[in-house]
Structures are given as C-alpha cells and as structure tokens.
C-alpha cells in the first residue's frame, strides 16, 4: 500500500499496554508507557498509531487489544508466558504529530539532529507509525538523559487517557486501566466535526476494501 507522510496536525496515539502486575499506584510513573529504544544506528525509536487508519476510538482500542494479544501469543509461542506478566491493554493517549517534529530545535535538546514520524505498517497493522529521533554524530550527551527529555515533552503534549477493557480481559480483577493517570494536556476529546469523522471513516473503509482487493 501507499506509504503516506503524516501531516503535523494529524492525531497519533500511544497505546498503554502493561503487564498485569503494573497497576500504577504511587510508585510507577505513567511515563512508563513511552518506551524509547535504540536502533542499531544509534537513533532513538518508538511506535505510535495513526488516526487516519484508526478513524474512530473503537478502532483505536481494537488496535491496542490486538497489540496486547499479539504480545501474549508471542510469549506463549516462545514458552515464556506467565500469567502474572500477561500483557493488558489499558487505554490510549493522543497527541499531534507536530509534537514529535518539534523536538528538533527544542531548547536544551541540541543533540537532536532530526525528529520525524513516518508511516510504516508493521505486523499487519496499517496504522503503525515509527518515530525516529536521530542524534548528532559525536554528541557526548548521555542518550538515556535525552530519552528522558523526549518522554517529558511527549507526555506534556498528550491528552487522555481513553480507557478500555478488551473482551479477553473481562476476567481480570483490578484491571490496570483503572489506574491510568490523566495526561497534562487534558481529557481525550475527539475534536473533529461529525462530518470530518464520517469522511475519515468512509476513506478508511474504501482504502481497506482496496487493500483487500489487491491481495
């Protein structure tokens, strides 16, 4: 399928998927949901999901449920699954794509050479986005400190959470989703007009139908 660029004003989502034992509370910080990892080339990466291909909040939650289920299935296949570490989808936080790109040029983040968000379908998920933050060559700054700064900026740009309990998790007592913390940007609100939402949904269905036809 055609890989598109992500407009600055588009909404993107970070899904909160935790081991069932991470019930939040006093000690565990909500910023734990932003998992930034290093790529082989030294850049910093994380994943988000694009509203363009998740046109309603139900699609957003379905994406999170599939993500958690996939992780559990992978652990079962690898023989490492434990019920106490069962992955639970709790909800999603929303931000604008421009929040990522604005990391480049932020004050006291001189080590960031580039910050971009690209559409890269992965594991059958067409809404998957890759956030790639490239560091300047030869920087002496601790990259772990850079990650902390990035997490802080992303968290402050977030709204939500939009909480959810997946069908598979109805049996979980004390669901960790009940302990999700409100983001600094306020409650999640779908700010699109009803017409815009309808157009997004129609576009999504057309593109999905085309993709199925091409297979």
């Amino acid at each position: 399928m055609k890989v598109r660029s992500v407009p600055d004003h588009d909404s993107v989502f970070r899904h909160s998927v935790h081991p069932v034992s991470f019930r939040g509370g006093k000690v565990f910080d909500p910023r734990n949901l932003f998992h930034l990892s290093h790529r082989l080339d030294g850049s910093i990466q994380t994943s988000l999901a694009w509203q363009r291909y998740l046109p309603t909040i139900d699609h957003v939650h379905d994406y999170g449920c599939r993500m958690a289920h996939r992780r559990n299935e992978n652990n079962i296949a690898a023989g490492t699954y434990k019920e106490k570490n069962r992955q639970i989808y709790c909800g999603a936080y929303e931000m604008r794509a421009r929040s990522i790109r604005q990391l480049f040029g932020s004050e006291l983040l001189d080590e960031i050479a580039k910050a971009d968000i690209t559409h890269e379908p992965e594991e059958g998920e067409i809404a998957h986005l890759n956030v790639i933050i490239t560091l300047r060559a030869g920087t002496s700054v601790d990259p772990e400190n850079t990650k902390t700064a990035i997490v802080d900026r992303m968290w402050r740009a977030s709204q939500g959470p939009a909480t959810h309990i997946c069908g598979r998790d109805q049996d979980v007592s004390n669901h960790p989703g009940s302990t999700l913390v409100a983001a600094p940007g306020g409650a999640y609100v779908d700010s699109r007009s009803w017409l815009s939402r309808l157009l997004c949904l129609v576009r999504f269905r057309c593109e999905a139908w085309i993709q199925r036809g091409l297979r």
Partner: protein
Amino acid sequence: MIDLYPIAVYHQALIVLNQGTTQATFSTNDDADRGTSYSEIHIQSGSTALSESQPSPQSMVFKETFSSVPVIWESDLHREYQELGVALLEMKSLDGENEHQLDEQVYLAASYVATELRANSFPLPSVFSHGPKSVVFNWSNNEDNLYLTVSADRMSALITSPERIQRRIEYPKSLPANPETTLLSIKSAFLKKSVQRCLTASASGQTQIVS
C-alpha cells in the same frame, strides 16, 4: 548549554521527625515590613527508654522559610522507600522478553541512588524506565518536574516546565564522592526554578526563597 557543575547552592528546610518525636506544633508569623515569614516549631522529644526525667521541649526557629515546609515522619519515609525498593526489584525480575526489565548493574545503581535519596530525605519519587539500561526517578512540584536518570555508570538531572526544558545536569558517575552535596544542589536548583515561576506568574501567597 548543559550545566556540568552547580553554580549556586540553596537550602530547603525539610523536617524529618524520628520515631522518638512525640509532638510537634507549628506557628507561623509574618513580618509584613520585610515581606518574609518565619515559623516557630516546638518539638517535644520522647524516648522509648525507661527514664524518670521528663523530656524538655525544644524550639527551633527558621527565620525565612517557604510558606509551607514539608514535614514527614521518618518511619513513613522508610515505608515509602520500601515500596520503591519493591518496584525496582519487580522491574529487575521481569522476563527477559519484557522491554521494561532492568539490567543487574542498572538495578544496583538505582538502588544505591534510592538509598542516598532517602538518607537525604527526598520525598518518594515515582519511577519509570527506558528499558534495561536506565531508571528514571521523577518528582513534581506544581507543574514542574525533576527527573534523575540513572544508568549503570552515570547519572543526569533534568528540570522541566510545561513550556520548556529548564535545565540539564550530567554527572560522570552514578553518584559523585559527595552525594549529599550533589543531591541537595539538584533539589535546590529544582525548587529555585519552581519558586521563580511562582513569583513571576502571580503574586498569590507569601512564597519566599530561603537564604
């Protein structure tokens, strides 16, 4: 620019009562002419040992303080930091496939830092990780945040506000040889930034900088 050395040191009053302290009363007086306030704190020391003598009350006067001085029982601080220790152990004990599992060396460094934080009466932080290579301790003061990122062999501090990153400090080792001074300077830098924001943002209340 990233600060490598603290350029100023401020002292923040924090009262930690040990288990022998049985009673504490507070009164705050305002000096309108100087625009400062001072607090009188009367603490009656007790003892679990058998003794026929009555403990005498002791008074300590802080000439200039923040409008609110945090007070915490040492036993509460100890109990809260035990929760932090359990959380770090849980993060170390996650399955190897889990992206939040901590490396052994990072766990040890974080535990050491947590011990020093408690010894210096830091309030309990929240904690998160970037994966196996680092742990981050986080404190909030109004809308500002202080982060301590601890790796196996280095530590860094970050102070942020909603608008921007305020300050970054990096240390070549998980804790320098004089951790008390380092941690106090970090705390002071964080509180100074928060007070400056209070003073410039609005004139509500009497918030003063300890001198």
